[in-house]
């Protein structure tokens, strides 16, 4: 996520609006992501309202794993905020600690999800078992891929630029925006799939 590039021999022109260029790009990216999940969630709600027997299917889901996962993901959002605070305070040590914590929590979320999937499948619930299960695997799977993407981004941040420079400060902020978005999607998925 680089800022407006300046070629040698040319002057940099300040952004035309008060929003930094990189952040503007991330916001547009997130806007398009919202419509992907929005479309999927809208399909789920409409099909569920028009169908029957979805509650019984949903009742087969374990509540323990997603509840734990909600805690894990919310905590990782907090550590991401603390990483951002650390980079603003130019504290490289704390930045590394909190980025590492965010990465580990993200990996933890994926591991818990894998355990949850394998338990459901052991009980005979596969994507092709029924429409609820197709939506369940489709929605949580797409969300899981987004978590994986966020883990990779945070890992790259952790490995490539361990010092708290200005560029790095922006990158941590942008990665944080994405990470919070992934968190918010889960906040929608959790009640829609597990609690209803």
């Amino acid at each position: 996520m680089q800022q407006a590039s300046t070629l040698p021999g040319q002057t940099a022109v300040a952004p035309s609006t008060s929003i930094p260029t990189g952040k503007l790009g991330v916001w547009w990216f997130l806007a398009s992501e919202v419509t992907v999940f929005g479309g999927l969630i809208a399909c789920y709600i409409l099909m569920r309202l028009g169908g029957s027997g979805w509650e019984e299917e949903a009742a087969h889901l374990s509540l323990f794993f997603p509840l734990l996962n909600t805690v894990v993901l919310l905590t990782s959002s907090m550590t991401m905020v603390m990483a951002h605070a650390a980079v603003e305070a130019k504290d490289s040590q704390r930045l590394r600690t909190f980025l590492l914590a965010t990465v580990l929590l993200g990996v933890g979320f994926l591991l818990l999800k894998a355990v949850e999937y394998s338990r459901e499948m052991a009980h005979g619930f596969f994507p092709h078992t029924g429409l609820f299960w197709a939506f369940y695997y489709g929605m949580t799977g797409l969300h899981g891929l987004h978590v994986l993407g966020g883990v990779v981004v945070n890992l790259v941040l952790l490995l490539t630029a361990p010092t708290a420079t200005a560029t790095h400060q922006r990158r941590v902020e942008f990665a944080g925006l994405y990470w919070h978005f992934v968190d918010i999607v889960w906040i929608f998925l959790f009640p829609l799939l597990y609690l209803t």
Partner: protein
Amino acid sequence: MSDAVQAKVAEVVPHVHEEPSFWRRYVFSTDHKVIAKQYLTLGLLWALAGGLMAYMMRWQLAWPETPVPLFRWVPEPFMYDGAMGPEFYNALVTLHGTIMVFFVAMPVLLAAFGNFLIPLMVGAQDMAFPRLNMLSVWVFALASLVLFVSFFVPGGAASAGWTGYPPLSARVEYTGVGWGLNLWLLALALEFASFLMGGINFLTTAINLRAPGLSMFRLPLFVWMQMIAAVLFMLSVGPLIAGAIMLLMDRLLGTTFYLPAGGGDPLLWQHLFWFFGHPEVYVILLPGLGIVLEIIAVFSRKPVFAYRGIIYATIIAGILSFIVWAHHQFISGIDPRLAMPFSVTTILISVPFAFVIFAMIATLWKGSIHLTTPMLFALGTLANFILGGVTGIFNGSAPVDIYIHDTYFVVAHFHYTLFSITVLGGFAGLYYWFPKMFGRLLHETLGKVHFWLTIVFFNSAFIPMHFVGVGGMMRRIANPLQYEFLQPLQPLNVWITVSVILLLLSQIPFVVNFVWSLVAGVQAERNPWRANTLEWSAPSPPPHGNFETVPVVYRGPYEYSLPGSVQDWLPQDCEASPRAAAARA
């Protein structure tokens, strides 16, 4: 020049310019102009492929199951000594639509012109995210490769129509096409990802990289149209990506999102597809309209009529485009009570577009019109697009649509809109900006020959198609002679096919002109058309980094023929008032 600007210019440090290697310069380049040409090249190559597919399909419709000249070399099981079977015809129908919409119209109108012009028109050195831009073109190249490969996998290419309706597309056994359709979906997903990256770049660049003095309401309309198109694409494609994931799951994991047997609903795909599909029409249309607006203003030597009105009307049309989608589904089994509201919104959308069209005509009114090749193509776009818009009103009215749905009337309708915007509008832009892109002018006479041949054979091919459609010929049928009631229409089908072949041959003057002008055309000066927008203040072709100094903008983009001014144009970065310019001249 003001002191602030002087100070800015003084900051420019002389630099040692390092010649990048061939690969960095032409292949893995982050320069928006090179990326634009890469998109243009891929788009034109796909246009050739899509055009040849149209020829093969038309041959089959005129003289079914006879060998297609030039294509006797195609091996079995695609064609049998040059004659095609219905399976291959289905694949051609599917891929012609997919290619022309997603691999020709979008890369040429959005990506090529948008990439080339947005940074130049806003006075920037490059896109906001040049490396993201390079990634977008390479993802598009990968999408092209995947689509190309999909022809050669066992089972053949996708053949469920360009709309990929389930249940036909949801199970391998329904079409016999396995990986062809999976790869088709993958190619589309990659293409969407590429254009999302492009859209983010377009919006961010136009919002944040504007030159000093260039307020939003001094932006050329082309930039506005690209921005609105980018927003429409970003907000409409998400649900289809979700839908494509579900379709892929149906095909690969055995889910039943779209299969009634498993509780699913095939209509769900139609909703998702057309929720995207109608804004997508405007994603293609708006850049085309932007091109036409720029050209009409320059060659009428008049300010665009109702500049802000056009922007507001387009935004209104963009919002309306999200609530018209079910007009594609009047006979698909939606609740009949829904048909009327969707008819109303569909016909309502013609109001803002009529506004834009009338604004174009008002721009021409009493202008000093120069009928150059780009202007001819722009006027051709306008005239033919109106015909496409008018037949759209027939299609949008549920009672009429029930009769003409899925007939050649619909095929004629969307070719009048898409062909006029993509091909005629695209050529208008290419003839107009070619000097800026390549530093040489295209040959005018050859260009005019190209225009007249194209416009004549286009109309000669597609006007009769309306009659064939009203006569009852269904789209996507491989052999009209199988149906007794269609046999009287066969002479018209032959006429259409001959016209299409001549239309394709009419593109030869363009190819000759393009290649010849690239090498030996007249050297273009900085501003050959005497236009106002910022791209004409850069050298032709602009170097890496575009402008010698950061341009400063003092006025709107269309100040032509101002009273009291001697020269009839005033570039946006010209500080002098009309009177001062007159005095200086």
